[in-house]
């Protein structure tokens, strides 16, 4: 009986065990259903998008190096800010996190692949197509979208031929995010190895579970919002037109109902990464595992009831201003719990500072700066002055770049020996860290002052008194960009064995690391856990407080 069944299962795989390797050539990547292949594709795609988005930011910073208009006309400048943001968020960070989830979640929770491998392939391939469509708008009559990534009507409705391409590409990105999120969520809920209860799960899996939930909840809302834009422009509806009884502010509400959870989508996986790396290099268990889980869930819950802090100046009723101010400030509590726990994990640890740890510690410091400026922005009366100034730009870049982007970099340094079997170069890794950290602060710290002094965002020219700040900021931006080439070479060298790098990484690359991914060889086999593995007690990262 058991044998007959066995044959069936083999029929299921369609081939024998030796057929488990990938296809050859380009078709491998087009047809793959393997979580590691798709993780790699996601990460390479994110790399390319970070590069394109980075070039756009350099156009912006070059123009802002001096007051006056020198390189680009204002219309093109606005296209650059709009596309830079869309590319960085939907093309860079979100795919990078999905790529990391692809690689790591199955290896961390001990299963063979993501739950829906073909859907996983679809989720990835939607992205290059969607971004080709989006970026092609730059070459259309009237140029690309220039109304800001927030797409506020009525301004965004003035976009020329690019408009429907913009809307549909956002729809496709949304489908990609939702399918990816469903996949990760279902994998985590359904495919943990026996014995791995939810509260024994690595925190990266926990934060991704909650991120996935947020994605499934809010990406459809964004789809609804942009659909209303589309019908307002082409089919005569009046959702956002007062003449017909609608209201442009309605768009802002719907958009930010998506948008605020979206910023947590961009940071919760980063929290998971940092919570994985710090215990490894502090050689201690994570302090307050349970409270980390509850804080993540608390942040996710609160993220649904704070959206209008982006709209304090729009003319909301007073009760709304007050509610959203206090609700926003509440988020500082669970966030504070997290920062406290990271610091407490390091307290009296036997710390070493390999590159992933440097980036993780840098994250804790610099993300927290962004968190503090966030609390400042949460105060309604204060925000009346800060709104739409460079102070806001400084705030969200502190959480996005030395926050989320640093966590992605840390994760890649941390796991690349596991992926490729080859160590990265520690000297260049550390150099990369210090240059990045110096330049990123040079870029964004002065923007706080420029903003407080009244410099507006999304404007290609500025008053003379802001020149010094902007010169520093532009130098920082170019320096940061150039520094990333160290990273690119360091990573590619591990991927392709350049500079004589050997495949000699041990299974447990970091001796302080725990978790199932460190029990398998480096590089991890193409199919890691076809049968659910045992979960030894010392690999459990989720250790409860007593």
């Amino acid at each position, binding site marked *: 009986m*058991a044998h007959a*069944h*066995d044959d*069936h*299962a083999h*029929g*299921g795989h369609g081939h024998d065990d030796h057929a488990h390797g990938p296809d050859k050539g380009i*078709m491998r990547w087009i*047809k*793959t*259903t*393997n979580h590691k292949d798709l993780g790699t594709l996601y990460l390479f795609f994110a790399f390319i998008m970070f590069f394109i988005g980075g070039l756009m930011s350099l156009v912006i910073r070059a123009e802002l190096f001096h007051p006056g208009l020198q390189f680009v006309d204002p219309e093109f400048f606005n296209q650059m800010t709009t596309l830079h943001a869309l590319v960085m968020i939907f093309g860079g960070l979100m795919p990078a996190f999905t790529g990391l989830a692809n690689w790591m979640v199955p290896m961390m929770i001990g*299963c*063979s*692949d993501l739950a*829906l*491998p*073909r859907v996983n392939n*679809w989720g990835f*391939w*939607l992205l290059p197509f969607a971004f*080709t*469509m989006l970026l092609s708008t730059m070459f259309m009559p009237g140029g690309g979208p220039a109304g800001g990534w927030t797409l506020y009507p009525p301004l965004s409705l003035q976009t*020329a*031929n690019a*408009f*429907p391409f913009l809307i*549909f590409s956002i729809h*496709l990105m949304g489908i990609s995010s939702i399918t990816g*999120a*469903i*996949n990760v*969520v279902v994998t985590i809920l*359904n*495919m943990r190895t026996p014995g791995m209860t939810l509260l024994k799960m690595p925190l990266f899996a926990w934060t991704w579970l909650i991120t996935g939930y947020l994605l*499934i909840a*809010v990406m*459809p*809302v964004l*789809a*609804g919002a942009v659909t*209303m834009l589309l*019908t307002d422009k082409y*089919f*005569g*509806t*009046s*959702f956002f037109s*007062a003449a*017909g*009884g*609608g*209201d442009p502010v*309605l768009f802002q*509400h*719907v958009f930010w109902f998506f948008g605020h959870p979206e910023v947590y989508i961009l940071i919760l996986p980063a929290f998971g990464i940092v919570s994985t790396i710090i215990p490894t290099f502090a050689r201690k268990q994570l302090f307050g595992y349970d409270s980390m889980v509850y804080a993540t869930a608390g942040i996710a819950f609160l993220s649904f009831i704070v959206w209008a802090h982006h709209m304090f100046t729009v003319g909301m*009723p007073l009760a709304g201003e007050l509610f959203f101010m206090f609700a926003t400030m509440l988020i500082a509590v669970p966030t504070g719990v997290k920062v406290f726990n990271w610091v407490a994990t390091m307290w009296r640890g036997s710390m070493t500072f390999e590159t992933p740890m440097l980036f993780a510690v840098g994250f804790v410091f610099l993300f927290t700066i962004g968190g503090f400026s966030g609390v400042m922005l949460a105060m309604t009366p204060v925000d009346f002055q800060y709104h739409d100034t460079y102070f806001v730009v400084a705030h969200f870049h502190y959480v996005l770049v030395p926050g989320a982007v640093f966590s992605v970099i840390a994760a890649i340094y941390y796991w690349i020996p596991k992926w490729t079997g080859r160590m990265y170069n520690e000297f260049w890794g550390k150099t990369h860290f210090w240059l990045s950290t110096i330049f990123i602060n040079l870029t964004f710290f002065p923007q706080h002052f420029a903003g407080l002094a009244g410099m507006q965002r999304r404007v290609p020219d500025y008053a003379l008194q802001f020149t010094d700040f902007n010169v520093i900021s532009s130098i920082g931006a170019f320096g940061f960009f150039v520094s990333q080439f160290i990273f690119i070479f360091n990573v590619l060298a591990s991927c392709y064995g350049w500079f004589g790098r050997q495949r000699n990484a041990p299974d447990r690359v970091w001796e302080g690391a725990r978790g199932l991914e460190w029990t398998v060889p480096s590089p991890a086999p193409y*199919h890691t856990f*076809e*049968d659910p593995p045992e979960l030894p007690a010392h690999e459990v990262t989720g250790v409860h407080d007593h």
Partner: protein
Amino acid sequence: MGTQAAQKSERYFVPQPSAWPFVLTASLIALLGGVSAYLEEDHIGPIPIYAGLAVAIYIIFRWFRGVALESEGGMYSAQVGRTYRWGMSWFIFSEVMFFGAFFGALFYARELSLPWLGGEGSKIATNLTLWPGFEAHWPSNGPAQLGGAFKTIPAFSVPAINTAILLTSGVTITMAHHALKASKRGACILWMWATVALGCAFLYLQAHEYIEAYTELNLTLRSGIYGSTFFMLTGFHGMHVTLGTIMLISITLRLMSGHFKPDSHFGFEGVAWYWHFVDVVWLGLFVVVYWL
């Protein structure tokens, strides 16, 4: 030894590499690119639209057929069944949130933006300077009376009948489910065709209602915020009913060719859940769009 073999048979099904998703994406791009060009009057012709649509439908059909055959071929363990259940539940949740955006817009228009345009509370200046004389009431096509005077569809006419139809269809699909579980395939198929018939009846009446709205009531998509919310909500719902009916038909055809077992029929359940979801959305629509 024995336990090991048994364990192996329960291995999670990991499909072979597949080109379906890639081709599906390419066809969607052709479709959406074609529609975009059409909207901007770029005159690249309708070929990308039709070709993209045809290929997309073909791939979706192939994909679902492949999954059905894998399932009937016994390749799915109980764990795979749970994956599909979880997956479908989360997908329906995302659909709920999509409708939520439009319900939210309706709520906002009725409770906030129209009263404000009418000068409620601190917004008296808006009313006096921008839209003097405008009084907020529902239904409304706004202070500029976009689209001209219109009439609405009374809740307790066709919509009430449609409510009854959908509720009944919820009962018939449950009867079909019970019949399937009791191994009464014939009865199950009959109940399923009854459900399909009810779905089609709903769509027929809905189409009829739309025609009446456009030809006799002067209620169109352009009728200000009322027309916008009315047609977008009922229109997206109608699209979901259409999709649901197609899903019902394919499940029924699968039943007729012997698919599904009394104790394992995820495809059936998934469609039933979807149908109930469409049902619940309609109840919401009936109350807040037609009735209140």
